[in-house]
């Protein structure tokens, strides 16, 4: 190029490393901001939920429908055989049911007597469909298609197949994020149903590949807990309602301190094939210390 021809006027350029620095500083700022003010995330969530959630809803509905149809064709034979079986079972159950119904009346009468009914009362539940799963492969959280407008709130418990799935951790107008108990950083205070011994159930990514999750800090001095015992959420948990089934103990090891035990349990819920869940419309009441409590406990 000859030196006479002037270069066209130079545009103002920021070197790319400064762009990177600015953007990462922005990220760190966001992290700090949302860490110290959890409510700061809600405007982002509201905007994006109107943009994204309807599509996730749609695609999930189509996917569910397709899987439904596939199963439908595959299972039609099985169902016929099953139907016969069930018919005979039904007649048995009918007779059993009448008997149980009588027992139930008696039971409820007795419960009223003991004013225990509040604790064991059926919780108010609402069904929800899973519309999206976490974008990473190693976090077990997902979105459901109900939110604030359906009466959900943060920290509500989520169940499926009669077992505990997790709890709501974030919420938008028409969606909620559920973190499951098998997520690597979730811990649940639990107890063995038969002996009422307390323990901590924690999700574990490395063990979940084997279909189990971990528990620890089980105090069982009398050696009464055995493999196969039911584990339910405990009364002292501050996020989970008491008495929800978590799973069954599959192995017990004595800890090195000789006081507590740890091991693994098989969750009652099949987390691989979840598509609908039930949300319990009740938040565990906790004593909030002053006015510093997060927005979860006061609705």
């Amino acid at each position, binding site marked *: 190029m000859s030196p006479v021809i002037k270069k066209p006027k130079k545009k103002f350029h920021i070197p790319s490393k400064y762009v990177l620095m600015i953007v990462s500083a922005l990220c760190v700022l966001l992290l700090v901001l949302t860490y110290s003010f959890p409510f700061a995330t809600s405007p982002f969530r509201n905007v994006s939920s109107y943009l994204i959630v309807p599509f996730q809803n749609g*695609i999930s509905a189509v996917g569910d429908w397709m899987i439904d149809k596939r199963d439908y064709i595959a299972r039609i034979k099985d169902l016929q055989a099953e139907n016969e079986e069930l018919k005979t079972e039904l007649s048995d159950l009918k007779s059993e049911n009448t008997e149980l119904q009588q027992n139930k009346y008696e039971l409820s009468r007795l419960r009223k007597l003991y004013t225990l009914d509040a604790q064991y009362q059926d919780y108010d539940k609402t069904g929800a469909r899973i519309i999206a799963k976490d974008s990473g492969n190693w976090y077990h959280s997902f979105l459901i298609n109900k939110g604030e407008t359906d009466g959900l709130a943060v920290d509500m418990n989520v169940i499926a197949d009669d077992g505990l799935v997790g709890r709501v951790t974030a919420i938008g107008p028409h969606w909620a994020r559920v973190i499951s108990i098998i997520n690597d950083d979730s811990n649940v205070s639990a107890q063995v149903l038969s002996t009422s011994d307390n323990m901590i159930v924690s999700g574990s990514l490395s063990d979940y590949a084997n279909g189990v999750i971990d528990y620890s800090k089980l105090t069982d001095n009398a050696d009464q807990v055995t493999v196969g015992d039911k584990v339910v959420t405990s009364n002292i948990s501050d996020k989970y309602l008491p008495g929800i089934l978590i799973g069954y103990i599959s192995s017990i090891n004595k800890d090195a301190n000789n006081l507590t035990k740890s091991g693994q349990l098989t969750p009652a819920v099949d987390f691989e094939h979840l598509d609908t869940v039930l949300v319990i419309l009740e938040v565990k009441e906790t004593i909030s210390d002053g006015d510093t409590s997060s927005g979860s406990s006061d609705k």
Partner: protein
Amino acid sequence: MRKFRALLIIALMIIVSFILQTSLFRFLNIGGISPNLMIIVTVSLSIVYGDKKGTVIGFICGLLCDIFFSDYLGFYALVYCFTGYLSGKFERIIFPDSLKLPIAAIAGSDLLYGFFCYVFRFVINGKFFFGSFILHYVLPEILYTTLIALIIYPLIIWIYKRFMRPIRESEKNFAKRKSTL
């Protein structure tokens, strides 16, 4: 006009891949592992647009993941914007039409992404299971992502060439000089 259209298409690509990743690949997962479309989009766009724009594109991709799936905004945004920056460095080295190097870059970025997440999500919590983590989660994800990238990367490049490529400076200058002469 062309610039605006390019912006619109980028935004659309990011949103569509996020939606597909979180909803469609729930059904198309293999053994619980689904591919990482966001990495594919970030890396492919960074390769054609360079490190500066790659950083911003990565930031937006990450922020989208953050908004829905993490408690504090910014973690994924950080990881993705570094991914965009690093793969944007290949802009001058990789010829986007070839397939081998971009796919390798995507696989490498996915590995880096897995490593980042491992360090900042698990090591910080005092959990060490590097071997099984790599074997059971990261490697399958890379494999699946690479397979999907073989389809999606050419698609993105095609869209880029067809609708988004800016008219080059040299082409403009050439036209200008021709008219002055």
